[in-house]
């Protein structure tokens, strides 16, 4: 049996969770005070997910960088690959907020989209 410790981020309370695992299966979750915490603990123990926010280079825009983010969570262990994919991209202004910059980034099924309008310079 393995015991994993997490601080829950489902809400600002930050309960300290203990998740007991047998191999890949969650056996018990302790320390949560609500169902969202239980869900979080389970996910975090088996396959932690994160949203990723970063910037891409823009050509001809008001600023040289456009903020972007993953519209949904991706596996935590693949954050580095997502960032590398984002770094490889360059977009041309103008861009509209929520415009898809990288569809289905590294095969996660999640799009990387623009966080704001970026007008031309």
């Amino acid at each position, binding site marked *: 049996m393995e015991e994993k410790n997490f601080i829950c981020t489902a809400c600002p309370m930050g309960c300290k969770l203990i998740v007991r695992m047998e191999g890949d299966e969650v056996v018990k979750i302790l320390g949560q005070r609500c169902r969202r915490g239980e869900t979080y603990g389970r996910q975090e123990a088996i396959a932690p997910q994160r949203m990723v926010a970063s910037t891409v280079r823009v050509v001809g825009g008001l600023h040289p*960088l456009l903020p972007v983010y993953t519209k949904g969570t991706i596996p935590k262990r693949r954050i580095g690959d997502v960032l590398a994919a984002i770094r490889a991209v360059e977009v041309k202004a103008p861009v509209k907020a929520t415009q898809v910059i990288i569809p289905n980034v590294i095969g996660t099924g999640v799009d990387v989209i623009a*966080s704001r309008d970026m007008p031309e310079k």
Partner: protein
Amino acid sequence: MLTKKQYDVVVIGSGPGGLAAAIEAKKGGADDVLVIERDVELGGILLQCIHNGFGLQTFKEDLPGPEYAQRYINEAKTLGITFLMDTMVMDVTSQRKLYLTSRDLGYIEVDAHAIVLAMGCRERTRAQVRIPGYRPNGVFTAGTAQRWVNVEGYMPGNNFVILGSGDIGMIMARRLTFEGAHVERVLEIQSYLSGLSRNYVQCLDDWGIPLQLQYTVKKIIGKNRVEAIEAVAVDDKWNFIPGSEEIIPCDTLLLSVGLIPENELSKKAGVLLDPVTGGPYVDEHFQTSVPGIFAAGNVVHVYDLVDYVSMAGSEAGRSAAEFALAEKERSARYIPLVPGKNVRYIVPHKLDKQALENGDISLQMRVTKPIEEDVWLEVHGEENSIVRRSERYVRPGEMVTIVLKPKMAAEVEKAGRLTVDIYPKSEA
């Protein structure tokens, strides 16, 4: 180009507080709403907060800062609000006159029936924390670094130590790591985390960045550029614990040691500030101690969630519009009393047309010279006569009174101003 000189509501700052205020002011019936922003575009500090966590309450979505701002910017643009960017407000008076300056407009004055102060806050700086050592380059507040990294596109260092476990510091720890820099340590002088535990997990714990509670910076090392900092443990009273010093090599020290509401303009306008919050005293409508001047957002006190800032901004904007409309209506009812022929002055100088319906109004005046014959005393508008009576003589030493009566209200209503002439009957 700025066509108007008089606005119903002027909002200073286009961050979440200002944008929400402007939108609600316009929806609340204010015709002319002006937003003044010192940066080149709208959005305020949200534009550099590219991480998620905004809008959970307002939109039930987890948005990054810029997108949260974009929603408000989009709505504001559809409403016919006037925007001035790259413009600084130099002065605000308690009579709600504003002095603005920008490259395009030069130095101009604008009057407002109501003002919403939404200038946000500034970061506590190095000197206020009084860190010994040199003053090399490489000591920046976390917000300054954030703007460089996220907006201007430059990295202000490669190896960082962050002082303060506030949210901005933790967010930057992750941000810098994402862009290939190395964050060596986060030091926090208190025994507890300053910011949200969610950020501890996702910004520090996820990336193996150590957080040392009850630690601070004892000295900054490096003459031209930071070369290292000397960290030291502290007790509950913030005294250094001897022997706990550690030299941490780095080239940048980021400060995330607190936010201070930015109330320079508020002070100029005569707004009273609460020394505890650092922001204006406000009532439930976010009106300050100066009638017609409202304040919303971080300029009042430091908020934790932007959603609450937007709510405050909306309330302030709504109330500002209400005040502006009442003020406009009230001042529209006033007409000036103008001294005409042989009249030196009249008191009152202006009167509320509506007030005449409720009772007599006495006009008191003096003449410029004695007229020792029968005279007419006449009150008239631009095109109509209101009342005329006679006197045997008039002299400067004796005050003259003319009474306006409620029955004259209808005629007074037609006038934009009332003039009083006194002249001999022989000249009529």
